[in-house]
């Protein structure tokens, strides 16, 4: 009886702390010019990790898409991380302070692009939290580390899935181009040769006079 009543507040405290960890968002958004996504970081020192991939791109000629720009702004207003002209990237940083962080995608070109992104904020209780609450067991730290490791595997999988989607779009586009452009090429060839024949016949027609040729 005594042991059970002593365990209860510890259990509830554990549930409080562990329920506030592991915030995840994984979505696709269409970027026309600038699209910003905000995510709240609860503790200073939390690791914010994520990735983004430009999934839908309609480039006609060059195989190298110029890419989009990505910026992370802290609540204080300074830029924490930035990538310019990339078609997909993974990012990872330690939040210098808690607050609302802004993740912005900027598309320098007029064609809208679809970006698939994933942001994860992970918190591992450290010695400060352990010291503050005597009911917090070191095993919770290990469990939090294990959860963060599994989240990083999940993040990699989401990145792979987004890259695979982009690859699938490219493959579909290649397949369509191969069929349509080849059939178009045959038709053009047939029409060009028919026009040639008509032109030559016209050159030899009686009204012109075949001596002039």
């Amino acid at each position, binding site marked *: 009886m005594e042991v059970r*009543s002593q365990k*209860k*507040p*510890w*259990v*509830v*405290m*554990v*549930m*409080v702390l*562990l*329920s*506030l960890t592991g*915030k*995840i*968002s*994984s*979505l*696709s*958004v*269409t970027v026309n010019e600038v699209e*910003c*996504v*905000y*995510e*709240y970081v*609860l503790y200073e020192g939390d690791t914010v990790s994520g990735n983004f991939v430009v999934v839908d791109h309609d480039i006609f000629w060059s195989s190298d898409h110029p890419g989009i720009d990505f910026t992370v702004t802290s609540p204080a207003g300074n830029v924490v991380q930035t990538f310019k002209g990339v078609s997909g990237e993974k990012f990872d940083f330690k939040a210098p302070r808690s607050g*609302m962080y802004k993740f912005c995608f900027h598309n320098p070109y007029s064609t809208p692009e679809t970006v*698939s992104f994933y942001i994860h904020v992970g918190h591992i209780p450290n010695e400060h939290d352990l010291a503050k609450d005597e009911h917090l*067991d070191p*095993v*919770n730290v290990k*469990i939090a580390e*294990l*959860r963060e490791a*599994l*989240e990083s*595997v*999940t993040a990699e*999988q989401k990145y792979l*899935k987004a890259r*695979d*989607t982009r*690859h*699938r779009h490219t*493959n*579909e586009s*290649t*397949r369509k181009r*191969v*069929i349509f452009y*080849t059939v178009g*090429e*045959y038709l053009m*060839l*047939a029409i060009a*040769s028919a026009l040639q*024949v008509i032109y030559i016949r016209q050159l*030899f027609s009686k009204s012109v006079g*075949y001596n002039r040729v």
Partner: protein
Amino acid sequence: MAQNLTSRARAVCSVLVVVLFLTANLVPVTEAIWLTIPTSGTKCVSEEIQNHVVVLADYYVVVDEAPQQYRTPTISVKVTSPYGNNLHHVENVTHGQFAFTTTESGSYLACFWLDGEHQEGVGATLNLDWRSGIAARDWDSVAKKQKVEGVELELIKLEGAVQAIHDNLNYLKDREAEMRQVSESTNSKVAWLSIMSLGVCIVVSALQLWHLKTYFRKKKLI
């Protein structure tokens, strides 16, 4: 007497902790992402989800602290499946939620837009908590059903995460196999169509020559 005091103190302590637990979970600012809804046009987010996956989403319009907006703008929401079925459609709300289990694999789209009577030139900020798959699982009911708590529940959650990773890997493997098939068929099409284009070229020029020869013979030029 001393024992009474310590037990009362302990009871007060646990009540405070329970209150903290409840209020911490009532403040949803720790989860979800914020999106800005433009004054005109819609803001859409999508996710490519496979079959038989549970999706849960919660959204609410974030109230601006500055008194510029005298009332909270209302939004309309529409969620569609990849084949165009309407899964959730409401108008003139400031908050709501939707949940569904996917019956087809593809891209699920959720669109938000501001309603007719909103202040011109002022957009709104939406807090969206979108969870799919393992993140949408209700761990409280699992804990109650299996009568586990604390560390054991956390380990069960980790086991669920590992199972989700395994399922995702299988899904990626199947998708890669499909794509490899498309790649290989495109490869063989390119080879066949290029050789056929050479054949078409030769056939067309042979036809040209034959036609011109008969034409000139007919015209008694050769």
